[in-house]
């Protein structure tokens, strides 16, 4: 919810996000301009994208978001990263699902244990 917190510097980030429909075997990157608080992390950026642009965006949003559970694995600018432990650095970013796991939809992948 941090994009709505009062009195905080915000920045606009150009985001490339992997979109893939639930039954599809292929997807593609889509581009959005998202406003976030300066110094926020990737998971909060995705929450802001969903509020500001597209409520259908699917990403691992049902988990701890404090760095303990490991469910928010993503590929951020090509590198494996946990979304809630990775700060948005700069004003462009690319976010994709992690490698080596079946994609359920968009950024949500089949986590181990399911």
């Amino acid at each position, binding site marked *: *919810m*941090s994009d*709505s*917190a009062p*009195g*905080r510097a915000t920045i606009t980030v150009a985001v490339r996000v992997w979109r893939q429909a*639930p*039954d599809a075997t292929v997807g593609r990157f889509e581009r959005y301009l998202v406003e*976030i*608080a*300066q*110094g*926020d*992390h990737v998971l*909060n950026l995705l929450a802001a994208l*969903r*509020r500001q642009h597209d*409520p*259908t*965006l*699917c990403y691992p*949003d*049902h*988990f*701890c*978001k*404090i*760095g*303990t*559970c*490991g*469910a928010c694995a993503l590929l951020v600018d090509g590198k494996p990263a946990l979304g809630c*432990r*990775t*700060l948005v650095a700069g004003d462009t970013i690319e976010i994709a699902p992690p490698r080596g796991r079946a994609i*359920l*939809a968009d950024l*949500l992948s089949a*986590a181990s*244990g*399911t």
Partner: protein
Amino acid sequence: MTTGRSSFDVIVIGSGAAGLRAAIAAAEAGASVCVLTKGSLLYSGASASANFSYCAQFGYFGPEDTPARYAADILDSGRGLAVPALAERLAVEAGQEAEAVDPWGVPWRRDPDGRYNVATFGGHSFRRAIHVGLRTGTVLMVALGRRLAALDVAVRDYCAAVELLRDEQGIKGVLALDLRHGAVVMLRAPSIVLATGGNVAMYALHTNPDEVTGDGHALAFRAGASLIDLEFIQSYPTVLVSPPAARGLHYPTGRLLGFGAQLLNGKGEAFFHNYETVPIQKATRDQLARAMALEVAAGRGSPNGGCYVDARGVDPATLRDVHFEAYFADLGLDAGRDLLEVAPTPHFTIGGVRIDADGATDVSGLFAAGEVTGGLHGANRLTGVALPETLVFGAAAGRAAARHAAERGRMADGGNAPVPDWLGHALRIEVATGGEPHVGQVSARLREAMQAGAGVLKSSASLRAALAVLDAIEAEELPRLSSRQGGLRLNWELLQLVELRHMLLSARLHCLAALAREESRGAHLRTDYPDEGGAAWAGHLVARRGPDDSAAFLFERVGAA
């Protein structure tokens, strides 16, 4: 993993620690069991976040260190409202449950003499907090998952319960949105265990996963079960409010205050002694939260409406012991270098579905366990009692549910269910692509209203303002919400819609109960009624469903029943 089957002896809703423990107990008792979770098996719920304390009693500290003393501490903390039968079961069985999960892979920390390593917390007469370092919750979830996998239990993940099915005899099953397979399904069972956790995600800022939307309150209430003590929500006193990436992270200040950490107002002054006579090192969470909230309300807060924790004088080894240093480092924070800006923030749902000591609700066949229930903690929860609550009452509810199912016999198969009107409506108007507001925006509005009006400090005026927003959402926005994604499969917008509908009811019940209790007690703080109301208020507000989801509240004096 079975997915096709739709009739079971026991259905467990929720895959946190309480749900998994219930499923294990029911399966061990010979029942056929299905676990339904709207998240994913090992990761979901608040349980995976619980970082440290599991309070249990082992008699290490002499003849006074008894289960009765543990129960008495819970009753004291509950300000007259904790239910003795629940506190007694918790106190007796917390230690047994710790031993039961040990062989499934919970390496409790032990001292050289082989005893559990026990840490101390305010409000407990003796040291009782056993732990697995800072990863107790995650380790416990993995261990429960391992035990579950060894049993023949069906699991449906990304599957959200929408409505419980019942008739005059009691529970019949559950209607659920199965997002993984893209269907609305009807699952049949004579016994259901609700283990859906709390509701604090109804606030803009909170410490839980955002999925903790009070679904179990709404499911139980609509099925006709009683809920109690819904006005009580525990705030964690020191939750980070800056920088943005750290908002919502609880910082375990309580354990540092004894090591030289300080709590300061926005002007850099110590203030706790202006509110309480106990030394700050001995303060309980509610005392800290209350003092901080009042100091901020008096205009002496920090820029983001909080206070400061100054842990710069604490030695680095101690800091490493109590908090997630690596996570802080990722976010560019260093407690040894930076002042931490913190505010009291909703953390734990104290009230909930009313149960007896076997986890049975007052609807035949409906059981509940864990944070979704109310009664054990009364008006305020002691540190480290939530995790043992999940195991003790999860196990009890699982066994009782299996017994009930054996008496009642299996139901006919469920199959695909008729889509309820409101859900069908949301699906049909998917043509409204691009329509505003969408579900995420409406949920955000609800959360902001609850934060502003029903947060740590409440008043009649603030609660009425929050209720007005809830009314407007219910009357004007909820009926117009639609899904712009075709189909049910992984339709995250519909999942949010199901959650919003549950959350709206849970939020309303909280506001109404908080409005009705015209006093301050435990975690319930009213600025217009700042004092505890004495014997006249020593009782439970019990909520039951009236016509059209309206709530009827009954005041039940303690000891009167």
